[in-house]
């Protein structure tokens, strides 16, 4: 019974999933060829492993490991501070290259993309496998990083494919062969199935993806909610999730968090960190033309305990000037002067589109008009001279202490070795090779 295919057509649809291998570490290796073949780790400024190259993984290094432990396991590891500016440039380039092949590209995360290839065989005069191989080859050649690619009849299957063989893998799963790939795949490895659902599936006697896919519709309807019925369909080669092309500009919430070392018990400094987070979150909200109705504030104490409070805003806004008083109040209610704090964060929630905001009878329109003028000017200045050219005085005490003192204070090469005309805030939007010639 287990040998008959789940789907008899090979390619009613063709969806590709691309996943960059050890992305951050690969970017570093692409820019500095001397790091190739070496165990490379990023995340120095966070004190934990953010990404590890395959060489490092082979030595037993895992994500989120403490760097002090890394030095014990792998003393020759090259540990670098994260250079998000460069990683973002690589990320954008991956998507741009994919768009040369198909207009339907979903930018799923910084290092993952879905591409709808359905119908492109005629255009390229070759098979889906050959198109996928060409896409992989182009990314790897132009960017110098390795990527893994999977092609399937649905997003869930494409993802099964890209994970099947890593790094530098290329896996095609035509309809007739789906069952071969699902046979040995444990249910918890399926995209969208978490630990709890996996445990529930196990209770029903379902251990592998194939066992789940082979259950009949009645059974699935009886036991599962809609999201899991959709996953079941996708596993059977019936595509439910569309590849969505619009880049992300609708947010449920915007959050900004910053850690500092060593932890501080200076109230001014800790509040300044919070205020800076608020400014950053508001900049992002304004860029996407959104206004917040709720503000969540949280602090992490030295013992890693989190405390937080949710505050309601008087009116939807993206201007820190209107929120600072409330922020201060929220901060006072959770701040413990006797204990050092290591992290602050704000979340702007209840976001709505800026131009849908309705003024109430009691709003001070003159003041709002003034605010909008001020922040328009601030944004214009930032565009010209870089972020934070003008900032709230409440954020200034962040200068009392370096963000990270000691070893964690290292900054990426790109921010140190600049070209004439570049500055701390603005640099050329191209990655810089790190070789001595």
């Amino acid at each position, binding site marked *: 019974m287990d040998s008959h295919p789940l789907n008899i057509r090979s390619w009613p649809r063709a969806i590709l999933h691309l996943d960059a291998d050890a992305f951050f570490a690969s970017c570093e290796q692409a820019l500095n060829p001397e790091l190739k073949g070496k165990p490379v780790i990023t995340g120095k400024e966070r004190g934990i492993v953010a990404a590890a190259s395959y060489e490092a993984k082979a030595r037993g290094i895992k994500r989120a490991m403490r760097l002090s432990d890394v030095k014990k396991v792998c003393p020759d590891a090259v540990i670098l501070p994260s250079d998000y500016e460069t990683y973002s440039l690589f990320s954008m380039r991956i998507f741009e290259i994919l768009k040369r092949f198909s207009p339907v590209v979903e930018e799923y995360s910084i290092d993952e993309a879905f591409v709808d290839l359905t119908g492109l065989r005629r255009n390229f005069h070759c098979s889906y496998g050959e198109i996928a191989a060409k896409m992989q080859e182009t990314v790897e050649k*132009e960017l110098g990083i390795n990527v893994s690619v999977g092609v399937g009849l649905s997003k869930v299957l494409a993802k099964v494919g890209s994970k099947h063989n890593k790094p530098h893998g290329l896996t095609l799963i035509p309809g007739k062969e789906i069952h071969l790939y699902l046979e040995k795949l444990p249910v918890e490895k399926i995209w969208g199935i978490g630990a709890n659902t996996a445990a529930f599936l196990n209770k029903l006697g379902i251990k592998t993806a194939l066992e789940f896919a082979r259950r009949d519709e009645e059974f699935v309807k009886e036991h599962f909610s809609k999201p899991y019925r959709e996953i079941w369909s996708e596993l059977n080669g019936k595509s439910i999730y569309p590849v969505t092309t619009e880049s992300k500009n609708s947010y449920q919430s915007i959050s900004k968090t910053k850690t500092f070392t060593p932890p501080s018990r200076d109230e001014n400094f800790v509040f300044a960190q919070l205020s800076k987070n608020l400014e950053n979150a508001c900049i992002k909200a304004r860029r996407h033309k959104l206004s917040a109705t709720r503000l969540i504030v949280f602090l992490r104490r030295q013992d890693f305990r989190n405390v937080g409070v949710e505050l309601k805003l008087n009116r939807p806004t993206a201007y820190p000037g209107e929120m600072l008083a409330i922020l201060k109040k929220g901060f006072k209610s959770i701040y413990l002067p006797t204990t050092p704090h290591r992290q602050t964060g704000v979340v702007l929630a209840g976001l709505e589109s800026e131009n849908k905001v309705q003024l109430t009878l009691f709003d001070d329109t003159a003041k709002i008009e003034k605010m909008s003028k001020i922040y328009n000017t601030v944004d214009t200045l930032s565009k010209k001279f870089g972020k934070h050219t003008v900032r709230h005085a409440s954020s200034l005490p962040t200068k009392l202490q370096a963000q990270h003192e000691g070893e964690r204070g290292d900054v990426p090469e790109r921010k140190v070795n600049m070209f*004439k005309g570049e500055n701390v805030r603005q640099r050329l939007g191209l990655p810089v090779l790190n070789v001595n010639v």
Partner: protein
Amino acid sequence: MSYDAEKEKLNNRIKEISNFYSTNSRMPSYSEIGEMLGLKSKNAVSKLVVKLEQLEVLRRDGKGRLIPGSIAFPLKVLGTVEAGFPSPAEEELMDSLSLDDFLIENQTATFLLKVSGDSMIEAGILPGDMVIVNKGQAPKSGDIVIAEVDGEWTMKYLKKRGDDIALIPANPRFKPIRPKNELKIGGVVTAVVRKYQ
């Protein structure tokens, strides 16, 4: 609201409608305009439509449905609203290259590199200069390349004659390099940029 802000608001609204037209290949209905721009009443939409009609951004047919005017050509919309008629100079400048386009052929495969050595001094590349490197281009004989030779990285002229490959410096103090074991080309140098101020 000041005159400038008013104008900008109108401009943004025109852009929204223009985007709708270009993605849906039809003009929006009154209620769609209202939804799109956050206008609550049809009356407000109608006022806007009258204004846009005067600016020749759009027209109305006999039944009052909208027909695109200059909105169908988004570039000219800016000209119409902001500066009266599009000037001939504007049209001419449409074909000019930005410095970015001039220096960069394939954006996604282009990297920068700060030069530290002086082995290419006679090719006009000095220490501290920025060179633009294209990783996506096949290297030809005569190109300046970034290459790895037997484990060392270098920037030199690539010379190929038959099977014979050499890396030639542009400085008499350096000797040509003939790779013994391995030669890997990291990219082709397509330009050098030196900023004085």
